[in-house]
């Protein structure tokens, strides 16, 4: 039904402030960028029309190819990790336990902390003599003690579970209430036994720390790529891995909050019914939690893809501490060509890269939409 002019006018008036901002800062700016992407322009001389030359030049530029690969790998890995991580933390925090508010706040902290500050802290952690290498060295040196602790825990737990199951089988054959492999009560006992045994062994001098050399992995100032044997499109430079860890750390809490909000709407009766039918925690998670969260998963994956494909700030702050090709992403490539230190800016080239990034993001999100839709309809 068509709206009459009388209704349209007030609506437009109310929309005007927003529309004005949208037109000036988005439509106009985007249109200019599209135009610039077909020109040779350096901010100082008039733009000269070059047709598709900038787009062709993109694929001849090594840095662009690195940026494209890095962006795609980064988006794939980080979106997966952050969605899974957020889902798991959200279901863990969606319980009625004393003190849960504290954990919810604590887990959300990384998201409200400035990403610049976090990046600087991570730069320290990943230095050659930084926290990460220190921790790895400590683990390597104390491997005998850690190994003994883990081994004793596993043995104690296995023995206990085996004993309990035997006892139950005797008492009530066919009962579904068999003891789980990781039964919490038994696990506490196992851990206590292991801690005690390890301490005793340590005091007897059987678990002396090894004199391994300090681990000094060069996380940042390197061109090394992992996994080493994989073809170029599937490798990630080590410094980018450091940024992936950091990015996942800071984005998981935000998405966790979305999942947590959605989880509150899943009726408790579903879980109760499933439990009565004998579904265990994992089955409940995969058959109730995930299907109920389908729309939110779509939202989280979309936001995650858009955010990771356009990741810029963390690369900018890592800046000159790392080789450019090891961290460059498409968004940083655009910035790098637009503000190339002391050279004249390559506005046309940068705009072409920006257009490519926009098209790529749109294409990937649309693809993701069709895939997730199909999953949902099944």
């Amino acid at each position: 039904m068509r709206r009459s002019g009388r209704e349209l006018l007030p609506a437009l008036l109310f929309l005007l402030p927003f529309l004005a901002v949208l037109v000036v800062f988005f439509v106009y700016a985007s249109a200019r960028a599209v135009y610039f992407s077909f020109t040779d322009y350096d901010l100082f001389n008039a733009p000269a029309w070059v047709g598709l030359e900038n787009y062709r030049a993109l694929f001849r530029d090594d840095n662009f190819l690195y940026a494209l690969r890095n962006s795609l790998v980064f988006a794939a890995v980080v979106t997966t990790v952050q969605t899974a991580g957020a889902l798991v933390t959200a279901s863990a925090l969606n319980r009625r336990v004393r003190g849960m508010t504290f954990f919810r706040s604590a887990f959300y902290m990384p998201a409200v902390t400035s990403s610049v500050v976090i990046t600087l802290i991570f730069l320290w952690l990943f230095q050659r003599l930084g926290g990460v290498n220190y921790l790895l060295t400590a683990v390597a040196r104390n491997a005998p003690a850690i190994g003994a602790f883990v081994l004793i825990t596993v043995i104690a737990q296995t023995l206990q579970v085996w004993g309990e199951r035997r006892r139950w089988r005797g008492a009530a054959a066919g009962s579904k209430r068999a003891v789980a492999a990781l039964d919490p009560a038994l696990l506490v006992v196992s851990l206590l036994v292991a801690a005690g045994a390890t301490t005793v062994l340590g005091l007897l001098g059987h678990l002396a720390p090894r004199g391994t050399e300090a681990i000094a992995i060069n996380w940042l100032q390197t061109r090394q790529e992992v996994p080493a044997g994989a073809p170029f499109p599937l490798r990630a430079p080590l410094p980018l891995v450091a940024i992936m860890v950091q990015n996942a750390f800071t984005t998981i809490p935000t998405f966790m909050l979305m999942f947590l909000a959605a989880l509150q709407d899943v009726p408790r009766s579903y879980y109760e019914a499933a439990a009565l039918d004998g579904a265990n925690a994992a089955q409940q998670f995969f058959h109730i939690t995930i299907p109920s969260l389908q729309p939110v998963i779509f939202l989280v994956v979309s936001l995650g893809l858009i955010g990771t494909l356009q990741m810029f700030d963390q690369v900018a702050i890592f800046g000159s501490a790392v080789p450019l090709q090891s961290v460059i992403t498409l968004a940083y490539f655009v910035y790098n060509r637009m503000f190339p230190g002391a050279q004249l800016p390559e506005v046309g080239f940068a705009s072409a890269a920006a257009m490519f990034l926009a098209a790529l993001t749109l294409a990937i999100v649309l693809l993701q939409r069709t895939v997730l839709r199909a999953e949902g309809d099944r």
Partner: protein
Amino acid sequence: MRRLFTAAMVALLAAIGTAGAQTIVRVQGYGGQDPAIVQRLIDEVIGADLAAQGITINYEPIETDYNTVLVNSLSAGTAGDVFYVPGETAPGFIATGKLLALEDLVDTSAFIDTLNAVFSKDGHVYGIAKDFNTLAVFYNEDLFDAAGVAYPNADDDWTSFADKLARVAALDPGVYGACIAADTARLGAFAFANGWTTFGADGGVDLTSPAFAEAFDFYSGLVTSGAAAQPADLGAGWPGDCLAREQAAVAIEGAWILGFLRDNAPNLQYGATFLPKSPTTGLSGNYLYTVAWAVNADSKVRDAAVKVLEALTSPAAQQFILEQGLAIPSRKELADNPYFSQDSAEARANKVVFEGASHGNVYGFQFGTIGTDYMGPINNALTAVMTGSVGSGAALSQAQSDLTALLQRAAP
């Protein structure tokens, strides 16, 4: 921040109060520690004289990335009337056509020729160097005494210098002979000593020549041999920091280290000497670091802006900067300055930095129109070798191909 704001408000009110009578000239410079000094220079040294001529300076330090801000504001037409142009980025800014040619407006012959050359193109001078700096070896006398090693001196070559550092490093596991960063801005000076130049005769770059490779091996070898350490590995931000904290006996820096040492290590007994000589050529090398004042070609108050530039580079202004221990004057007439013969570690160090400009093979800290991007591949190679992840041959050929690609991209 609040003080800056207040200062800006006062300046603004003063400007409004005297509107009509006064011409306002906008001056832009670096942020950081610079604004305090430049503000004092304007208030105490040159302000009154300019005010008498009806000129008020509106000083606007730029706190973020200076070059980026300048490119943007120049293209948008919002740049100041007078502003800094760093030597290493000057060719790029001259190419924008937004810098006023000054040779007919200012007496450029009063300034050191090599400095004018840094800001010149096709016979035009686009900036007047406000001051300059070169590199010197700054050493901690106590650490050398404790190790029983002679202080570094002008006769040292790379071999004897490295030997002295190694002997100081042997003193204690927590002390290094030197603190050096993976930085082309230092390595280049040693390569100059060997006869290498930033760009070859054909305009290309040769990083695999013996002249460069030898300097590269010497410089990175200081770290790989354990005689020196990188600042980051000592938890320091830059070599001056290691020197101030007595973690290293030597830092290779310019006169900018003096103010830092004065504030952070007032009791440090230090000396300064020239960079060691290449064993091959018997010469030392050095970089000439400089920043110029330039005038905006589109300035609406061009005449006043030129007067401000003259005041900012006047003998009185330069003497003030020198005595603050910040940088060496760019005027020829200040070369025989009584300040240099004062009996203090600072004055002696300043003299070494001043004479460094004419000691051996000295070239401007400048990299054509690609600017400081030039240093990226070489810095990466240095880092890779210093951290032991690659050999120097592989690192240098990687740097060579990266740098060649960079130059080809930048070529029109």
